[in-house]
Each structure stands twice: as structure tokens, then as C-alpha cells.
């Protein structure tokens, strides 16, 4: 799956956003202009918890941000999935705080909400998106219309407006791979806020087209066996696990 993503990303990069195309492409494969020129600027309302974490433990997030950038440069890890075994393990808060640390560094950072059963990213940032990733995948809306740029924060957000009715079909759609290939082309680092792996009765489905994963772990909620199981699930999906992010320590 990673090979397909790489090939798609290279193809889009070669084609370029401004290159005129001969025939009008179908909606899912339309090559838009970079989203920064299309999307209107957005004001992000950061949660108080994120600001408190940044104030008290900002150096830890700075170090992780530097490590992620280093991994991107050395190992081409551009799309990082943040997942957890269960809900309420602090995943979204960690992603938001880390995104602020990355936003202070050069490069274009994108936050993607891929919590298909309970999207929280837009709500956490005080956003009410008109379009989102669900519209891009299901309705063929262009990415540029769905991505929300926050120039003041030096960040971009691709929200998910509502929970997805059929997550498996959503992830297996061709539009998912092509969307992430385009996002990979247009951004320097992508943080994907994925949902919990073991939510509900269905078998876990980690989002495809991601280069590596970080498992957010709250010791009081998740035991060692769940972590091992999560590791197996991710490796089966072809997503190497970089390590743990322990919260509420």
C-alpha cells in the first residue's frame, strides 16, 4: 500500500498543480491548485488544555516535533498516524499540542481528522467546517475547498464533518489513496488523528496511506495486552509503529 502511495505522490508531484491538463479529469482525480490559494483563512480557538500543556511541558513536544522532522528527512516519514487503543486516551489533545510545536518550525504542517467514528478535531478547535474529508472522499469535493488554512497559526486543518457510516468502504475507496497522495504532495508533514483501534465490535481498521504510527497510551485505560494487539493490527495493515506516547502519567 505504501508503494502505491509513493507512486501516486510522485505522479502528482511530476504533474504539478499548475500544469494544464488535456482532458477534464473525473472529479476524484481533479488536480486543484494548492489549497492555500483557495481556502479562506481560519481562526483556530485552541483548547485551554493544549495551552497549559504547551506552557508546562512544551519542551517535550518540541523534542518530539524535532524527532518527527528528522524522521521525515531521513526516512521519508511524511504521514504520521496517531491512534490509540480506546477513546479518551488524550490522542486529539496530544496531536493538537504537537501541531503547535511543528507550526513554529519551517514547513507546511497539515492536521487531518481521520477519527471516522467520532471526529473531534474541528470541534476542539472551535471550527464549524462547511466541507470536510468526508465530502472529499464521498462527494468528490476538491481538497482545496475542504482544507482550512490558519495562517496565523501556520497550520492547515482537514476536518471531518460527521462520523462516517461505513468506515471500511470509506478507507478502501480509491479516493482515499488519491487524496492522501495529493496531501502528501502539498504538505511537508501530515499528522493524522486516527480513531481508536478497538472501538465498537467491528474489527480494527487503521487508516491506510500512512507512513508510520504513534500509539497514544493512557496506562490507566489500556493494558499491555491491548498494546501488543494494537501493534499486531498496525503491522498487519503495513503501518510500522514508531513508539508510544504516554499520557496522563
Amino acid at each position, binding site marked *: 500500500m505504501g508503494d502505491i502511495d509513493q507512486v501516486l505522490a510522485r505522479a502528482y508531484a511530476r504533474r504539478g498543480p499548475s500544469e494544464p491538463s488535456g482532458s477534464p479529469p473525473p472529479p476524484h482525480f481533479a488536480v486543484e491548485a494548492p489549497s492555500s490559494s483557495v481556502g479562506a483563512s481560519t481562526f483556530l480557538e485552541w483548547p485551554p488544555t493544549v495551552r497549559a500543556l504547551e506552557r508546562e511541558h512544551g519542551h517535550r513536544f518540541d523534542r518530539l516535533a524535532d524527532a518527527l522532522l528528522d524522521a521525515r528527512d531521513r526516512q521519508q516519514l511524511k504521514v504520521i498516524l496517531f491512534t490509540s487503543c480506546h477513546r479518551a486516551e488524550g490522542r486529539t489533545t496530544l496531536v493538537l499540542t504537537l501541531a503547535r510545536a511543528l507550526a513554529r518550525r519551517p514547513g507546511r504542517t497539515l492536521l487531518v481528522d481521520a477519527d471516522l467514528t467520532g471526529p473531534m478535531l474541528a470541534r476542539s478547535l472551535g471550527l464549524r467546517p462547511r466541507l470536510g474529508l468526508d465530502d472529499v472522499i464521498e462527494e468528490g469535493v476538491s481538497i482545496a475547498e475542504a482544507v482550512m488554512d490558519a495562517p496565523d497559526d501556520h497550520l492547515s486543518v482537514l476536518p471531518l464533518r460527521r462520523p462516517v457510516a461505513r468506515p471500511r468502504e470509506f478507507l478502501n475507496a480509491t479516493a482515499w489513496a488519491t487524496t492522501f497522495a495529493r496531501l502528501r504532495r502539498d504538505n511537508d508533514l501530515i499528522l493524522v488523528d486516527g480513531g481508536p483501534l478497538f472501538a465498537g465490535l467491528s474489527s480494527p481498521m487503521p487508516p491506510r496511506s500512512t507512513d508510520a504510527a504513534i500509539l497514544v497510551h493512557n496506562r490507566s485505560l489500556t493494558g499491555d495486552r491491548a498494546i501488543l494487539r494494537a501493534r499486531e493490527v498496525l503491522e498487519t495493515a503495513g503501518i510500522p509503529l514508531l513508539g508510544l506516547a504516554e499520557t496522563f*502519567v
Partner: protein
Amino acid sequence: MTQTLETANSLTLSRPRAFEALPVLISIPNLAITSRGVRPKVRRRRLRREVRLAGYALLAILPVSMALVALAGDRWSPRAPGLTVERRGGLVESSTNRPPTCSISLEPLEPVIVNVHRELEAPVILPGYLLPADTSEESSDGGH
């Protein structure tokens, strides 16, 4: 924490074995525990004060309400004119201090005549059917 920072400085993409320990990239303390400065204490004090006030209010209201219920219960109870308990021997016992809410009257027992009901019942005779005799229908050996 040293291990955390060292690991976070160099992320290596490898395929670890299943039971190998995973590196901890970042460890974030619980804000509620670490920052026990001003805000959580204030919240707890508020909560305690609210709980205390609610308790005082309950303690003040409960005895008054219980007294009201007791007094009003006496006043509202139905007071029948002939509050007597009749016994079988005709002994009448009246209680003026605590009148009962109901009176019980036991009539003297009389011998019950069972045959009266039997005589009142009309026999049902269906045409064309031969009714068995009132005596025992069959012999002890079943007719053999």
C-alpha cells in the same frame, strides 16, 4: 524520562518483534496532578462549600418538615363518629386517645346448612341422554 528524550531524538523505523518493548516517544504528565497550584484547589473549595451549604440546608429543612408532616398527619386523619371495636361477646371497647381508622365487626358464627344450596339447584336433563344413577356408577371391578 531520559529514555523518552533519547528515543524521541532519534526515531527509527524498524519492524520490531511482537513482544519487544516499544520505545516511549513522549511522556506527558497529568496536568491535574502536576499543576496543583491554584485552580484545582479553588474548584475543590467551591465544591466543598456547595456540598456544605446543601448539607446545612437539608439539616435545617428536615426537622421542620418532619414536624409538619407529623402534626398535619394527625390533623388530616379521618375521625369517624363511632370508633368502636366490637368483639364477639358484645364487649365494646372504645379508645378516645388514638382512634383507629377502621372498625372491625365480627358476626357470631352460625351453623351452615349445606343441603339448602343443593335443593335450590335445578337438575339439568338433556333430551335423549340417559343419566346415570345417583349411586356408584360402576362396580369395583369395572363391570367385569
